[in-house]
């Protein structure tokens, strides 16, 4: 990367804080982001599972949808996602994805009903395309506003609720996927009880000018350590959560990806608002007839990690590949290698032994249930 490109990288409101904490910064989705702090990926991962970790996710896109009639905004958004937006209650958030005309996934996102508007959080790498899609499909009836003057923090781990409750007691009452507006550290924060680690925790949208102060205030608690993108990835992998662009992409359908739980009944065949989103015909066909491949959890039987791109075979020698790994690493909490990937549906049953080709050798790997580490959500 040339120097010009590096100077073009964007910085989050926490950039100076990352530097002062000794973070190792890397380019990620156009931003200069902390991949790890001096603690290191392994200990950061373990700290998050044992106490609480603070993540800067300000690179993600924050978008507000408004219409004169809030129901109109919900109805309009349902033309882009296969989830029940109209039925999403005020103060609640749910997982969704944008589908394309072939039934593939163009991005995954969170949708929150905040009363008079909808609040969306989308992936950093996709945010420009997502916003363009929203504008093209929804304007002018619905205004699409990218929120660029707010940071986004995630506080994750079994101690997260106790730590955040010291700043506002109401967070203790919130359930998984609740979202509220709360004054925290002197600023209006949009707080949801959600995250990307499998642990209990919160995601906090905070005004840019207050973001670093809030982060410092949270880090001042002995239970909280700063956590980089490296541990964020191993945490979400152990939790069985998909990384867009790796485990799901424009070619993978929600059926193959095992994400149909996010399509509520009302949007499925026979539902009152069935279909009506891009690629719904293809997705409904797959729902009825199954699909060629499925996303599964994978536990290598040896100690060697099987990383993204490793080809999977049914036999130890010969034959064609029956699948591929889409995410794989060492799972610090599991204490061994973990992976996920796509395999032929006939071989997707739990316990099936396949062989992953690593450095020219086929090593046994077992199809396993996900998550690899139980979720700690407060439902």
């Amino acid at each position, binding site marked *: 990367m040339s120097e010009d490109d590096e100077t073009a990288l964007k910085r989050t409101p926490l950039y100076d804080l990352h530097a002062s904490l000794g973070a190792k910064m890397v380019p990620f989705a156009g931003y200069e982001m902390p991949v*790890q702090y001096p603690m*290191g*990926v*392994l*200990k950061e991962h373990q700290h998050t599972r044992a106490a609480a970790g603070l993540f800067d996710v300000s690179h993600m896109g924050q978008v507000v949808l408004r219409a004169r009639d809030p129901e109109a905004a919900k109805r309009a958004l349902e033309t882009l996602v296969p989830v029940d937006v109209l039925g999403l209650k005020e103060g609640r958030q749910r997982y969704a994805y944008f589908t394309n005309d072939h039934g593939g996934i163009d991005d995954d996102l969170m949708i929150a009903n905040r009363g008079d508007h909808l609040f969306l959080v989308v992936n950093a790498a996709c945010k420009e395309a997502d916003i363009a899609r929203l504008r093209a499909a929804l304007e002018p009836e619905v205004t699409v506003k990218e929120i660029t003057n707010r940071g986004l923090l995630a506080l994750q781990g079994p101690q997260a609720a106790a730590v955040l409750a010291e700043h506002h007691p109401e967070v203790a009452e919130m359930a998984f996927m609740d979202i509220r507006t709360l004054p925290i550290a002197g600023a209006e924060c949009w707080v949801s009880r959600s995250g990307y680690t499998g642990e209990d925790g919160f995601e906090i949208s905070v005004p840019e000018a207050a973001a670093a102060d809030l982060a410092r205030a949270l880090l001042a608690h002995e239970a909280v350590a700063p956590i980089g993108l*490296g541990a964020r990835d*191993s945490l979400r992998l152990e939790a069985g959560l998909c990384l867009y662009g790796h485990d799901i992409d424009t070619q993978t359908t929600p059926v193959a990806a095992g994400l149909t739980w996010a399509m509520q009944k009302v949007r499925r065949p026979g539902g009152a608002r069935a279909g009506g989103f891009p690629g719904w015909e293809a997705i409904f066909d797959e729902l009825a007839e199954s699909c060629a491949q499925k996303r599964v959890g994978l536990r290598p039987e040896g*100690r*060697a*990690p099987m*990383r993204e791109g490793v080809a999977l075979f049914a036999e130890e020698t010969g034959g064609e590949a029956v699948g591929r790994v889409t995410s794989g*690493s*060492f799972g*610090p909490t599991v204490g061994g*290698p973990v992976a996920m990937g796509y395999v032929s549906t006939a071989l997707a049953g739990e316990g099936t032994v396949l062989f992953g080709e690593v*450095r020219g050798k086929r090593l046994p790997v077992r199809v396993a249930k996900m998550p690899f580490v139980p979720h700690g959500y407060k439902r």
Partner: protein
Amino acid sequence: MKFTEEHEWLDADGDVVTVGISAHAAEQLGDVVFVELPEVGTAVNKDDEVVVIESVKAASDILAPIDGEIVEVNEALAEDPGKVNEDPEGNSWFFRIKAEDLSQMDEYMDEAAYKDFIG
């Protein structure tokens, strides 16, 4: 002790050379989670890939820095790969190699030159 541009260190005792990775390399790799060692008795040529080392981030290789025969491997690393990060330039050596030609070590850097190299 000598250092290679691949961030390996070599320490000769007679014609047996102990090989590990530098503290700088261990830090750059991050937490090591997997080590695959060669078999004792393997004849190797300089630049053969003899060890696979994986950190939480990525896989990398350790190359044989000289020609010779692997005479001992540090099994403790395969059992507890995290040891690599604890003492990379001491107890966490990877293998010992019986050198065919010790003069192959002459091309490598001494500690001062290596420090300059890594800046």
